[in-house]
């Protein structure tokens, strides 16, 4: 397993290298001179602009610019945000905890609900409860997150006033106290539900169908023939097999969540990576933009690795070596 993991991580390097070329090229292709962010816009002296261009290396051949960028990047220097005037890594580090918290909450909600609803519906298919859950699922699958987010704010934040409509925490609370965490939780709940709604619905459906399918498997019949009580058959034999695919989704979720956070964080004015990304695009903050894009690509690759490793852990038939 360790050997496999190391090999996989090594295998990610060429992929990331290729992606970095794509990312760099795209940033170069983006309209608008990225200089405008780095040079005092009030200073129009052509000589000054030319000097700055030279100084910032915009006149170097493209491959040199790339090499400079990538070698800095690998040393953890993602460049300086043209908007915030501080290293992009610091900006990202500031926002990262919020996105991680949102992502974890969303995952938690997704898996808890999907597990509860999916196992109920799978065990009692075609009953009233199952139909209710199915109806919920269809709505969850059909309601895009941005619509769900807008509705959620309209209904739960404005009309009912149950949840705050923006931010990540009430600033007046002392960091680390219980009420601080409650406030964070209160702020993250609505966006987390919206972010997780789609996967909750699809995982529920998936789990349900998988349970129904596994119920018909030969080994379940074997277990019955052994005299194993029904509840134990569900708990061990069926569930153990049914959670295998759902667990492996966890890895893939990592990449998806952060992408999904772009919309959710924007709607809820939640200061995380997604919102940062979007504002970096509109403001042409290239260093931040490139760093986030690389980060998300890495997360996607990393998520795939996690998925494979989890698969190897939960399914004894898969051997990772």
């Amino acid at each position, binding site marked *: 397993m360790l050997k496999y993991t190391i090999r996989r991580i090594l295998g990610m390097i060429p992929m990331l290298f290729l992606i970095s070329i794509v990312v760099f090229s795209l940033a170069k292709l983006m309209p608008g001179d990225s200089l405008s962010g780095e040079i005092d816009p009030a200073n*129009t002296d052509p000589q000054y602009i030319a000097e700055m261009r030279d100084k910032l290396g915009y006149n170097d051949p493209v491959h040199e610019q790339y090499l400079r960028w990538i070698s800095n990047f690998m040393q953890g220097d993602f460049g300086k945000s043209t908007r915030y005037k501080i290293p992009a890594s610091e900006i990202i580090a500031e926002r990262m905890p919020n996105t991680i918290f949102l992502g974890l909450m969303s995952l938690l909600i997704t898996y808890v609900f999907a597990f509860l609803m999916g196992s109920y519906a799978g065990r009692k298919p075609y009953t009233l409860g199952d139909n209710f859950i199915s109806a919920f699922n269809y709505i969850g699958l059909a309601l895009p997150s941005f619509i769900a987010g807008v509705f959620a704010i309209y209904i739960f934040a404005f009309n009912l006033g149950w949840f705050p409509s923006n931010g990540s925490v009430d600033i007046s609370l002392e960091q680390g106290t219980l009420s601080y965490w409650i406030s964070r939780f209160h702020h993250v709940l609505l966006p987390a539900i919206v972010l997780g709604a789609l996967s909750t619905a699809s995982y529920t459906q998936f789990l349900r169908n998988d349970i129904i399918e596994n119920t018909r498997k030969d080994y379940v019949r074997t277990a019955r023939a052994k005299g194993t009580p029904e509840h134990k058959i569900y708990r061990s034999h069926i569930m153990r097999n049914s959670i295998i695919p759902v667990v492996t989704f966890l890895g893939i979720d990592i990449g998806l969540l952060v992408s999904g956070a772009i919309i959710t964080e924007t709607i809820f004015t939640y200061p995380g990576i997604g919102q940062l990304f979007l*504002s970096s695009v509109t403001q042409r903050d290239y260093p931040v933009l490139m760093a986030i894009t690389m980060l998300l690509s890495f997360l996607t690759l990393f998520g795939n690795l996690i998925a494979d490793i989890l698969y190897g852990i939960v399914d004894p038939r898969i051997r990772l070596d």
Partner: protein
Amino acid sequence: MKKPLLWFAVLVMSMSAFLAACSGGEKSNTDDKKDNAANDSKPQDGGTMTYALDTEFKGLLNWNFYDTDGDDDIIQLFDDPLIDYDENLKAVPNIASWETEDNQNYTFTFKKGVKWHNGEELTVHDWVFALETIASIGGEHQRWSNVNTIEGAKEFNEGKADAISGLEAVDDYTIKIKFDKARVNNLENVWAYPLSRKEFESVAPKDMAASEQVRSKPVGTGPFKVSKVIPGESVELVRNEEYWKGKPHLEKIIVKVIDSSLTTGELKNGTVDMTPFHPTVLPEVEALNNVEVIRYPGLSYYYVGFKLGTYDGKKVNMNIKKYQNIKLRQAMLYAINREEWVAAFFSGLGKPVNRPLPTAHWIAADNGDMPVQYEFDVEKAKALLDEAGYKDTDADGFREDPNGKEFVVKFSHYATGNPTFEARAKALTQYWEEIGLKTKLQMVDVNLYYDQLEKDDPSLEVFFGGWGTGTDPDPLPLWGDDTVWNYPRWVNEEAQKLLEDAVDISVVGTDTEKRKQLYADWQKIFNEEVPALPILELDEVMAVNERVEGVIFDVSGPNSAHEWWVKQ
């Protein structure tokens, strides 16, 4: 604040009320503002006020390093400038007062007992520190142009001198500054924001912007102290008990960022006490029972420009033919029902203007004195076009140019996420089509838009734009014959002379009336030639919960926050 010009596109997106105004200082009440402080009893102490920004703040929380409105809004709650501006944008003493004989040598005197939040007293050395910090960074610092006019600043920057020779600290409270030459606007131009030596002495100038002293633990001399910063999200400020103008009433101010779509909802729920908002939501905000709208004159105006020439990096050349006909341009302004347009897209929060300056500025000439008034008049517009030879020769309902060729007005407007931009641009083209001008609308990404304008991209012919001006009234950087900001690329020798004379100390001396007259003459020429069609000047609005008292706004911004209070 001294950044003389702001791109309007940025303004529109951020919709900050404080825009180019420089500070909050002692204000005398003016007639056109709603002052609810007078109605009620005595101010009460205590309480928390929540102030919402509808644009993200960058977190560069120091006058010397910030560059956006969001940060500005926060800084002025906790840091005071040395010089303030009154409702006519004339400089008035705040912490510092000054004397000058010749507009070259100034003596500034600081008030005693003004303390930084860290307990140190503010002295002239803090100002020197600020000026030297900027000078040591030089061209890469955006305020360099506000410092390099001081004698010896350039030498200091180049390392030829250990100190800026034009700065002479007489004692802790008195400083003499000598500028490289006499100018009418040396005072308005000079960088008048000190930097605490104690906080920053251990930080290299290059690293200051990223330091925690700027980003998370800023200090100032203002009525509130920053107690906590959540980057990009909110800032908590607490009362500065030792504020030199008196103890603030409010115990706490919370500044938070919300999406503009949430404005009315948050105001209604009382989770936001005070926030600027987009003009289009004015009716909704006014409809809220618990909120009052403070309206005050702004410093920005919108125009429709024509590309009349190109900029070669040094000079503006008026060498593009298509829109050279003045009658064509005038007709296009007559064709626009500006009253209706402003009512529709700015909820009436603006007035049509006939000159490229906001009324609030002291150099602005009286609108009524303008030679052409450009009242909405379709017939007049059509007549002008007929005169100019733009006639419909092929009976397709649209006019051809005097040579009988097809004439299409290519109109461009910047695009952001805001859907009303498209609508308001479209509405303008509809006015022009009414008078028989075929138009084509192009929405251009805002980041590209100003880039293309600067580079005279041929795809931009007629363009929508806006300027927000700062405290320095000089139109030369915008309309001079050697500046890239002159987007229409308009050159008129007479006008150019007027602008140059107005800042020439040998012509105007220290006589502001004479200076104003020169500007008025310039405005008349502009009014007749309309290289850009002035559309409107915008009023600023601020929504304030009615429990908040003592808040006053004028063109230079709000009054000092220590006077604000909430009913409990």
